[in-house]
C-alpha cells in the first residue's frame, strides 16, 4: 500500500504565546489522527503534548481536540492527504499544546 502524506499544523505552547508548528506524517489509509500524533512524538518531536488513554478504542474519551475548527476525538478521525489544522479545545483552559483542562472541576487538584 502506498504511503500518503498528511501535513499537520498543530497549535503548540501554553496560554502564554501559542504558535503553530507543522509536521509531515506519512500514513496508510485507515490511520487515525491519534496514530499521527503518536508517530510525531516517536519520530520527530517527543515534546508534543496531547491526552489519550485507551489507544483508538474510543472508550476513554480523553483525546478530544479541535480539527479544522470542529471538536473531534483524535482516535476516530482519520488522517488524510494535505493540510489538517489541530488545536486545543477552545472552550477549556489550555494547559499545553493540545492538552486542556477537561476534567470536571471537582476532580482537579487545583480547582
Amino acid at each position, binding site marked *: 500500500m502506498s504511503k500518503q502524506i498528511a501535513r499537520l499544523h498543530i497549535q503548540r505552547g501554553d496560554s502564554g504565546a501559542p504558535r503553530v508548528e507543522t509536521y509531515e506524517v506519512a500514513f496508510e489509509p485507515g490511520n487515525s489522527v491519534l496514530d499521527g500524533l503518536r508517530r510525531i512524538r516517536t519520530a520527530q518531536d*517527543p515534546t508534543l503534548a496531547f491526552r489519550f*488513554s*485507551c489507544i483508538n*478504542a474510543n472508550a476513554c474519551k480523553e483525546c478530544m481536540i479541535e480539527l479544522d475548527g470542529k471538536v473531534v476525538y483524535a482516535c476516530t478521525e482519520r488522517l488524510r492527504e494535505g493540510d489538517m489544522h489541530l488545536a486545543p479545545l477552545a472552550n477549556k483552559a489550555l494547559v499545553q499544546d493540545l492538552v486542556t483542562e477537561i476534567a470536571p472541576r471537582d476532580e482537579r*487538584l487545583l480547582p
Partner: protein
Amino acid sequence: MIRLESDVLVIGSGGAGIFAAIAAARDGCRVQLIDRSLIGRGGATVMAQMTVAVALGEQCPDHWEYHLADTLKAGRGLCSAPLSQLLCENGPLRIRELDAWKVGWAREDGHLKQALAPGHDRARCVYVDFLNTGPAVSRTLRAQLNRIPAIRRIGDVLITDIVVHEGEAVGAVGLHLVSGETVALEAKSVIIATGGLTRLYRRNSGSQNMGGDGYALALRAGAELIDMEFVQFFPIGHLAPRMIGMDPIMWDPFRYKLGGRLLNAEGEEFADRYGQAESGDYVLTRDVATYAIFKEVEAGRGSPAGGAYLSFQHVPEADLRHAFGPVIDRLAKNGIDLTKMPVEVAPIAHYHMGGVRVNASMETRVPNLFAAGEAVGGANGANRLSGNALTEAFVFGERAGSVAAARAKSRVASGWNDQAAMRDLDILEARGNGAEAPYNTAALVVELQALMADKVGPFRTETKLLEALRRLEQMQREIGAAPPRGGKHYNMMRLDWLDLRNMLLVAHSVVLAAIERKESRGAHQREDYPGMLPEWELNQVLSLREGKLGLTRARPAAPAKAAR
C-alpha cells in the same frame, strides 16, 4: 509542593480503585482517589468488552465452588488458593451490588443472562450488551462515586513513590502533570490499584497508562511481586484490516454468541491440531489458542498480516445484526463486512496474572500497603479464565478498601515523615545535568515495547530472554538517574522518563522470572524447556534488595477449604 492528607489513599481509578474507595468511605474513612489521567476513564475496566465470571446460578444451577474449581484448574497448580476463593465466593455479592446500581446486565426470560466462556464448566459470565460491559461498569461506578462526599477524586496526578517510614507505608509522593508541581500525600493506609503491565508490549489491549506502575511502586516500597513471568496473551486480538474506534479484543464476544471459525491461510480450521477440538461451542482456552496461532504462522500458514483468519461468513446477516446491532454499523465504517470477508487476528498482550504479593486481606508485607485488582498477583496462577478479571477488580477492590479502612481507623496518625518523603521527591526535583535528553523518550518506550514483544512474548527461549535482559540493562543506563529538563506544564518527556523508570524495572522482573522458570506452564511457554514439570509447582517471588532484583520460590498458598 502541594500537600494532601487522607485516611485512605487509593492509587488508580479503574474498577478496583473505585470499589476500594467506596468501601473505605462506607466504613467511615476520608478517602483520596488518585489517577494519572482522568477519574474512571483509563485503565482496563473501561476497555472490558463482555464477560464477568460469577457463580450466580441464574442461567443454570451453579455454586462458587465450581467456579473456584475451574479457576484453579486454569491456573495450572499455581493459584494462591485463598485469593482465588475470595474472588469466586464474593463475586456474586459485587455483581448483585452493580445490578442494584443499575449497570444493566443483559437479561432474558426474567433472569440475568450468563454466557459459556472457555474454561468454565457451565454458563457463568454476565455482560452488558452490545460490547458495553466496561463502559457501563465505569459509568455506574462513577455515578456511585460522585455521590460520596467523603471521597475526594483527583486526576492528572502521577504517583511516583510510596513513602515508607520505619518500615510502614505512610503515604505517597507524585507529580501533578498539569502544573508540574510535586505532591505529597499523607495517608494512614495506601491501596495500589493501578492495573497491569500490558503497555510493555507493542500490541496490547490495555490503556496507555498500564505500564506496570503499581508493580514498580510496590517493589521500591519493599513489597514482593509474585508470578511475574505469566503475561496473558489474548489469542484473537484484531490485526487487520485497520480498525479504529473499537477495542482490539472485541472478537471474543462475537465468538461467544456466534461461534466463528478460526482459519489458517489455507482456509483450514487448525486449533484441533494443538490438543483441543473446536466444535460448535467456543471452548478453546487462551493459552492453547495463542500457541496454535503462533505455530501456524511459524509453519508459513499465517494470514498476510501475520495472524489467523477469523470468519463469520457462514453466519446469516440477520443473526449478526441481532447479536451485535450497532456494532455492525461501526464495523461498516471501518470497511468491514463480516458477511463477505474474514478479519485477521493475532495474540495481543491482554492481562497480567502476576503482580503484587498480598495475603487474603490484600495487604503486602509492608504494613498499611495494600493492593487490589489486576495489580494483585496470585489469584489466577499461570493462566486466567475468561471473565475473572473484572470479578477480581470488584472483589479485591472492595476487600482492600474495607481492610484498609479498618487499619486507618486503628491508627492514631499516619506516621508521615518529611525526610522520607523528600528522599522520594529527589527524583522529581532533580533536573539531571541540565541538558535536554539525548534520546527521544517516546521512541525509547516504543523500542522497549518491541523488545518485549519480540523477545519476551508467549514463546520464550533462554537466548532471547538473555538478549532482552542485556538490552534492558543498556536502556537503564541510557535513561540515567534523573528525568530530562523541560517545561512544567504537561511535560511529556518527563512523563515518559518516569514511565520508563517503572517499565524497565517491571520488564526486568518479567524477564528474570521467565529466565528462571525452566519449564512450560500456562502463559509461560519455553521452547527450550517444553512440558510442565511437577517439581515446578512453585511460585516465584521477586523483591528489591539494595536496588537489585532478587528471586525466591515458594509453594502456592493452600486453599482455606478444599474445593469440590
